[in-house]
């Protein structure tokens, strides 16, 4: 096994792989009719490719890459709204670096910065608040994006700003939630999924109960997983065992970091600052009910949408006629849903590369296209060409 030295415990990894093989055989799955297991989190997608787990596991398991990469699902309109705010002369727009290269219809934040907008990369929302303290004459806006893992950090930062009575700090809230798109994918008649590897650090915040509906209402297993290779293999084994035994439960492989009840302090801050939006648009997936949050009325003074009149609803109205189709020839939508693999996209590796991303999936190392390009592009293409030859 080529990757042996990278496992925490290579002997154990080998045993787990053997057990996976036996369990898969019990399910009756074949390489032609594989078990389709979705890893929801982009960090897991990255790890699966980094360690070649898709090749180590039996061909009768297909990894379907989920929507758990925040920059990948950010709609172009929201990037446009960022630009709108960032281009105001009084504004210092702060963001995680990951979001800098995500394309909007008028280009990315990176391009806006090159055109002269004051856009600064920060490590933490706390850096944005600190900037607001140091430069009180400017309006500092923090671009809040990410799933439940990053929500507590922006909620706590806003609460701190409120305690200080800051008037030049606001949050452009684009936080999204993991469970709603999973429900949407399960409701999609074109999708067939047999089980899920659940996100680790999102679950560290929210606990395991929010996934119960997946097992209860849809009869699919979900196993919350760590992101080390052995964690992922063990989680896959737990998913496949459930399928083989006809069970559908939410299990926790990552209990050493994920308490079943989540993090109460984090959840309390999130609950105090945010409330669900009726719906939120996901790139490639469309509008999904209750899948995003906005700031509560009590924190309206720190809400960039209210402050600059760049509301989610308003921008959608403005851009209705230019209702944004995906870039011609791109297949980002199908890739984000896990319906096709990145190499099915004609732009993959040609017009669209990590250096010149056309779609957001190519921007972050958590995006399926970037992961394929980095680790599996050549290999996948070779396999593809081979299977095409075999067919003809």
């Amino acid at each position, binding site marked *: 096994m080529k990757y042996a030295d990278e496992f925490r415990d290579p002997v154990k990894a080998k045993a787990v792989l053997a057990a996976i093989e036996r369990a898969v055989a019990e399910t009756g799955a074949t390489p032609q009719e594989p078990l389709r297991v979705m890893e929801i989190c982009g*960090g897991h997608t990255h790890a699966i490719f980094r360690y070649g787990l898709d090749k180590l596991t039996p061909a009768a398991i297909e990894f379907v890459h989920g929507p758990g990469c925040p920059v990948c699902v950010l709609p172009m309109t929201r990037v446009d709204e960022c630009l709108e705010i960032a281009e105001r002369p009084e504004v210092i727009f702060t963001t995680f670096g990951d979001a800098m290269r995500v394309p909007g219809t008028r280009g990315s934040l990176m391009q806006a910065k090159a055109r002269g907008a004051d856009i600064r990369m920060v490590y*933490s*929302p706390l850096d944005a608040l600190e900037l607001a303290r140091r430069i009180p004459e400017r309006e500092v806006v923090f671009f809040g994006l990410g799933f439940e893992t990053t929500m507590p950090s922006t909620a706590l930062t806003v609460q701190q700003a409120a305690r200080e009575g800051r008037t030049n700090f606001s949050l452009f809230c684009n936080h999204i939630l993991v469970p709603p798109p999973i429900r949407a994918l399960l409701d999609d008649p074109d999708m067939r999924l047999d089980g899920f590897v659940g996100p*680790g650090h999102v679950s560290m915040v929210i606990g395991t109960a929010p996934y119960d509906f997946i097992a209860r209402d849809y009869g699919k297993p979900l196993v919350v997983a760590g*992101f080390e290779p052995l964690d992922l293999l063990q989680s896959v084994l737990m998913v496949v065992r459930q399928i083989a035994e006809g069970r559908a439960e939410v299990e926790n492989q990552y209990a050493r970091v994920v308490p079943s009840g989540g993090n109460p302090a984090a959840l309390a801050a999130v609950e105090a600052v945010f409330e669900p939006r009726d719906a939120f648009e996901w790139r490639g997936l469309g509008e999904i009910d209750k899948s995003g949050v906005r700031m509560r009325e009590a924190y309206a003074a720190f809400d960039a949408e209210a402050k600059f009149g760049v509301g989610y609803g308003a921008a959608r109205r403005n851009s209705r006629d230019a209702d944004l189709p995906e870039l011609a020839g791109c297949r980002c939508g199908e890739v984000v849903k896990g319906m096709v693999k990145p190499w099915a996209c004609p732009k993959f590796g040609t017009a669209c590369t990590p250096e010149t991303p056309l779609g957001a999936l190519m921007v972050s190392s958590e995006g399926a296209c970037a992961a394929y390009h980095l680790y599996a592009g050549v290999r996948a293409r070779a396999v593809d060409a081979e299977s095409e030859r075999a067919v003809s």
Partner: protein
Amino acid sequence: MCLGIPGQIVEIADAETLMGVVDVSGVRRKVNLACVVGEGGPDGLVGEWVLVHVGFAMSRIDPAEAAETLRALEQLGEAMEEIEKIRAAEEMLGEAAP
């Protein structure tokens, strides 16, 4: 974005706002401890290992777990990237006049 990085709490900077200092692979950074304080208050946290996400300690972990997590992050190329982000942010703030 969700991976974070392990760090060891070396100092409580401000007990009231629950700010502490962590050492992340030799780089020091102020982090918020609100999600890990619990009943005992922040003082007992010095020496503890935590998983740090965008400047917030989100979970206490044991030292062995911290070491393994760091190793995995190094292999994924995420450890250096995260530390670079921390450094760059410090630099950016350093240039902003107080």
